[in-house]
């Protein structure tokens, strides 16, 4: 165990941001003062995180066309090329792509860099692929998107928790401890490890969660389980909701989803009967071309039961990436400015422009969303240069082969990364940057709690922070940018002041002293806001809005050529595109290779045995994987984890009309034994 000289920090991976101490000898111990894992929990990724610092695969020198060069040479080269491309093709010919794992400081600096130093509107990030649907639905219902608008420890007292499309046992294991006292209702096409802990598991066909939510809400109305008093006092739009549900009687929903009516009824009644109940959504229901409407349907369900904005109950989106919450608040999103402000809002533009010392009219408008941006690269009207920070789209974007082609058509690709990721390997210029324990910065976890990650070790020689890269390029383009995290955070505080995600009262010292501060926190003497909706929602009239929605089929349905659904997801021992975890030996031993999970009946029909190599193909590409045969999955569906190149060659880039989320969670494939 570490001694008093250990550094108090957080795990480098998921949005739970478990507290940990990193000792001088790089030993890891869980912290007991951080509520997310106060019981001393960590998963294998956390326990082995220190190997990220020592595994010998670090990039330690800038690379120009694959050759090591000095920092100044690489920065001069990139700045020169950017200036040239801008001069020839205009500012929107340069694009920026960020990540939900970046600290708040980096996310903020990146947004400012794009709009001020580059003058481009073409900036978005991989968080678009993560929680954008839930963010859009929360905003339209509550006027604000704070993933979980309550501390994670509130869940400990719940009687019933509905987990719609999330597999926390695999994605953030210590989270499950907060649910140990509750009856769990799990919605997932697979009997996941989380579903095995459930009191009731609803196993819908991929792409039909929206219908399921409508059917359950229909039953709540039909069985008169609505919290009438709450609906009258705290919501608007209930009558329209009622009419919108009349066409979603449970027997119809059963036929669409495959979930028996009596299961829907058990679920609806258990939620209604609970003294304390939560509805939580995850990527499983959100990553669809109708993800926003699906989340709205679950929010509506929660609202009919009077859950949101009440102590001991609520709706929440369980964010995935380490800074999935903070990363969407401070301006690396195509349509946003710091403080969770809309880039279309004149008052927001005026405020942020003043902090940045520019005129509001100089700020570009909204740019392309993540997939649209990638899809436009190297096209006649699209960007010709891309700066990539904390993301690996060749593995993580949908229709990945097409994305790789678009990236190949660029005049200039610049990647900032810790290791040579699949996308960095395609770059003209690679900057080796610091990670996690080598730098300081803030992260906002899934509860909206702003946390401090401290520098614990020196970075390897030759490695600089992303903030240094941003400041170095900005300086060469004629703009002064700070590169010290604390200074950047102070500026972020001012830029966020008065916005929805107001950080102005948060300081590094307060975070350290208070084990995190919940936003909004508008002043130094403000205690922070663990439960923002208790008195009122963030809508103009303070009421939550019912948003009536209708189910529709997936963008791509199965047919004779592609007769099986594909759904994708995560495994415990790997993280995101695997760039970090695929380089850590114990994690590779635990999860060595991509696999395709299929039902014994489907396997029998296709002549596939356990351990066979199978070829999975869709209209967009094909991938190979090892067959794992399990009756935990529906007969009509195959599952592949997305941490390796392959799964996302198959996925469908059909986009949600509101959130621009791609349809990662369902497409049509063919599965064959690879001969």
């Amino acid at each position, binding site marked *: 165990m570490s001694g008093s000289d250990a550094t108090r920090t957080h795990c480098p991976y998921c949005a739970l941001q478990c507290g940990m101490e990193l000792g001088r000898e790089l030993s890891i111990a869980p912290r007991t003062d951080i509520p997310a894992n106060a019981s001393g929990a960590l998963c294998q990724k956390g326990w082995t995180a220190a190997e990220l610092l020592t595994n010998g695969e670090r990039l330690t020198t800038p690379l120009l066309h694959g050759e090591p060069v000095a920092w100044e040479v690489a920065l001069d080269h990139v700045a020169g090329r950017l200036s040239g491309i801008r001069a020839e093709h205009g500012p929107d010919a340069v694009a920026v792509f960020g990540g939900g794992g970046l600290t708040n400081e980096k996310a903020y600096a990146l947004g400012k860099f794009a709009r001020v130093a580059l003058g481009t509107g073409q900036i978005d990030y991989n968080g678009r692929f993560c929680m954008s649907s839930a963010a859009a639905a929360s905003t339209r219902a509550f006027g604000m998107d704070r993933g979980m608008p309550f501390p994670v420890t509130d869940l400990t007292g719940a009687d019933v928790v509905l987990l719609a499309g999330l597999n926390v046992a695999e994605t953030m294991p210590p989270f499950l401890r907060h649910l140990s006292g509750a009856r769990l209702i799990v919605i997932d096409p697979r009997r996941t*490890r989380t579903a095995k802990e459930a009191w009731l598991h609803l196993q819908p066909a991929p792409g039909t969660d929206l219908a399921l939510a409508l059917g359950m809400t229909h039953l709540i109305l039909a069985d008169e389980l609505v919290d009438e008093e709450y609906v009258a006092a705290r919501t608007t739009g209930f009558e329209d909701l009622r009419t919108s549900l009349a066409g979603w009687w449970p027997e119809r929903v059963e036929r669409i989803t495959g979930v028996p009516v009596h299961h829907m009824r058990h679920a609806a009644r258990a939620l209604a009967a609970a003294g304390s109940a939560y509805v939580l959504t995850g990527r499983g229901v959100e990553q669809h071309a109708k993800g926003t409407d699906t989340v709205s349907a679950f929010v509506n369900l929660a609202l009919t039961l009077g859950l949101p904005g009440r102590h001991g109950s609520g709706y929440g989106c369980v964010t995935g990436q380490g800074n999935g919450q903070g990363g969407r608040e401070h301006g690396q999103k195509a349509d946003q400015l710091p403080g969770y402000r809309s880039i279309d809002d004149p008052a927001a533009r005026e405020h942020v422009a003043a902090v940045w010392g520019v005129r509001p009219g100089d700020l570009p408008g909204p740019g392309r969303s993540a997939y649209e941006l990638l899809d436009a690269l190297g096209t006649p009207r699209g960007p010709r240069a891309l700066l990539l920070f904390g993301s690996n789209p060749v593995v993580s974007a949908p229709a990945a082969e097409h994305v790789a082609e678009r990236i190949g058509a660029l005049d200039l690709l610049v990647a900032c990364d810790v290791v040579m990721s699949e996308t960095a390997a395609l770059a003209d210029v690679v900057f080796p940057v610091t990670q996690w324990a080598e730098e300081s910065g803030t992260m906002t976890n899934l509860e909206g709690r702003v946390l401090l990650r401290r520098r614990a070790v020196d970075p390897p020689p030759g490695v600089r922070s992303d903030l240094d890269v941003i400041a170095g390029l900005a300086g060469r383009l004629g703009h002064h940018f700070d590169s010290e995290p604390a200074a950047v955070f102070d500026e972020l505080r001012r830029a966020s002041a008065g916005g929805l995600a107001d950080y102005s009262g948060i300081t590094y010292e307060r975070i350290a002293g208070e084990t995190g501060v919940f936003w909004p926190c508008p002043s130094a003497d403000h205690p922070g806001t663990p439960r923002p909706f208790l008195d009122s929602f963030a809508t103009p009239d303070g009421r939550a809005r019912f948003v009536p929605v209708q189910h529709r089929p997936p963008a791509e349905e199965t047919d004779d050529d592609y007769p099986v659904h594909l759904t994708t997801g995560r495994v415990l021992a790997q993280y995101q595109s695997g760039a970090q975890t695929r380089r850590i030996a114990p994690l590779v*031993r635990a999860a060595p290779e991509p696999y395709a999970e299929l039902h014994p009946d489907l396997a029998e029909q296709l002549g596939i045995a356990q351990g066979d190599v199978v070829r999975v193909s869709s209209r967009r590409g094909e991938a190979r994987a090892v067959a794992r045969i399990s009756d935990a999955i529906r007969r009509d569906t195959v599952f592949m984890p997305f941490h390796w190149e392959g799964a996302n060659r198959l996925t469908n880039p059909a986009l949600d009309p509101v959130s621009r989320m791609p349809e990662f969670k369902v497409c049509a494939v063919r599965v064959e034994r690879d001969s």
Partner: protein
Amino acid sequence: MRLVVVGNGMAGSRLVSEVRARDPHMRIAVFGAEPCRPYNRVLLSNVLAGSSRPEQVRLVDASWYEAHDVEAVLGATVTGIDREGGHVVTACGRREPYDLLVLATGSDAIVPPIPGVERAIPFRTLGDCERIVAAAGHARRAVVVGGGLLGVEAARGLAGRGLPVTLLHLAGHLMERQLDVEAGEVLGETLAGLGVEIRTGVSAEAVLEDGVRLAGGELVEGDLVVLACGVRPVTWPAERAGLRVRRGVVVDDELRTDDPSIFAIGECAEHDGTVYGLVAPAWEQAAVAADVIAGGKARYRGSRLVTRLKARSVELAAMGETQLGEEHAEVVRFSHRARGTYRKLVIRDGRLVGAILLGESDVVGTLTQLYDRGGPVPGDRAGLLFPGSSATPVADSPTLMPDAAKVCQCNNVTKGQIRACWEAGARDVAAVTAATRATTGCGTCRDAVEGIVDWLCEQEGVSV
């Protein structure tokens, strides 16, 4: 382009919204004979049973029509179609010109021509439903005539309101169009247990003040008589206009009648020799017709029929060809009448072509989707009816568990590693945890780790 829709029920109202979703500008006028906004007829059984209130079945908000620029004329029966002049005429004399016309006139309840039938209330519209509910409030005993889907739902609903109910049915078993003999009998037994007296093979001869007289003279007592004797497509407007009509208005794969500017959908339409009486086909037809009207290329190829009874404590699903015998198909059957359970699969060429599921069943969704999609039936037929029965048992007892079995998923710890660590001196869970990190993730393996440590200790005779 002016579109006129005759009929504002399930099919007509659906068509209007489908067209509007595809074409924001087309001029649309819809005529409904009933005076109220469209409602979900499927839910009327719930209204009758008291599990839904009438305002819960409305399909369209009052404000929708104005917001979507659709003219809705309610309480207006269209009495004539002038194909030469290109307009329709309502009972009150209004003339409405059209470029395209959709007939969605639905069906009427069949009222048998027997003496006193006017004393009985048919079960078809929301108005009928409200009359039945009002009458049930002061009735002592009810008789339902007709043991098809609607009659069964009505009888169950009235019994649920506390009324003694007799259900009269002409055929030898209930729902004979959807069920085989045994299923019909099991259904009857289930209903009997819920307070519905079943009389099959009987014919109502007259409705009297105190009940229904059967052929043969017997009086079945009841002061509320409900008719559920089936429906008849409303085709007379089409017939008068000279359109081709058999049992329904004959349409092609575009849902067009023999007049290319006139479509027919829903229960009044006959496609490929079939008149459908369920909502799912009507909505599929509405979507196709709307697409064609908006210039699309959709075609209607017929519908697969799934009947799902909506009656509290009676779970019944029937789909496809339920009555094929062993000589034409492979039939898998499980029957447990004492529990009200009957399950039947009808398989032909390796595909599920029919099924009956009576009694609560977790496989109803799976089978419905298998039938709908026409996918291959797995070799293990029993596994399809009883999921989990063929799964390999999980060895969770420490004795049976192989060393390679993973105990702690979060930290990838096997039983073998726990044993090795125990052999190296770790004699309790805390020591095993310190050595292996087992139990430090989600925490759900704690009992399993404890079990293994206890077992190892017992093996060695060490007391903990």
